């Protein structure tokens, strides 16, 4: 059995979103089982199945944010601080 990752796309402009995973012996059976496992209630109009073996997993270390570059974080903290200062100097 192989593990497949399931992606669903609703009608319209929404992108494909990861919905979960399933086990099947091969691609064709994965498609047969994908429908009942993830789309029987019309959760998606289109489905992608990707064998987990084909996913490229990125090293967590590579993703970690640089601690010394807070200006790259657009979380609004600096603007909030600025406003607070304006309002209540």
């Amino acid at each position, binding site marked *: 059995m192989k593990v497949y990752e399931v992606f669903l796309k609703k009608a319209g402009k929404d992108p494909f979103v990861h919905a979960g995973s399933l086990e099947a012996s*091969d691609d064709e*059976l994965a498609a*047969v*089982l994908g429908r*009942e*496992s993830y789309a029987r209630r019309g959760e998606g109009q289109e489905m992608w199945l990707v064998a987990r073996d084909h996913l490229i997993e990125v090293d967590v270390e590579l993703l970690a944010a640089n601690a010394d570059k807070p200006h790259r974080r657009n979380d609004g903290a600096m603007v909030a601080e600025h406003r607070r200062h304006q309002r209540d100097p």
Partner: protein
Amino acid sequence: MTAAGQSREVDALVLATADDEMMMGHQWSEWICVAPFLEEDLAVCSIGQDELGHAQALYSLLTDDVDRLALRRAPGDYRSGWLCELATPAWEDALARHFLYDLGEEERWLALADSDPDRLGGLAAQAQREERYHRTHAVSMVERLADPGAASRARLLNAIDRLVPLAAAQFDDLPAAYPRFRTTVDAVMDGCGHSLRWPAEPPTGQGRAGVRSSHFEALQRRLNAVVDLDPSATW
């Protein structure tokens, strides 16, 4: 044939198909949580739910009290095929029956749609959309599990061999469609390098004739387990 005679014949076909569908729907419900793997569990309980929906739609053409007609008849008034009454505690038997039943069911829906297009055409078209999935599922599973390299091959093909006479008897009331059903099944079996021994004609004197199999009594008891607690309750 008179119009009344024709309509009685159509009603008999509707009733037998409804009984088959209800039995099959219930049979699948008994696999909930115990199918071999989660994805199969979801697939077969969904297929069972489809079958129950078809049974309900067909019964409601015959009565306003679907539950009563479906559950409370005398055994001799049922018309289900013995294939559908059979208890299948082994997965290969459940799968073999799924394959033979659902490939045969296509013929019944075609016959129903033909027999009375105004009353049954729409329902048959809707059911066939769902049945297409059932057949795809059944054939996909059979092709894989009967693969020459698969350990399951002998078990599954033996189960199909055993059930062939019952699958043929499904056509007791629809003999004209029997050859086409055999051709459809044989095409899949050919692909698996296996051939089946079919009776020349559908066996008679079984479920369609009102004769119940040895499995019926226990099945009907299970079907009625909840209703029997309080038959007068309103749901």
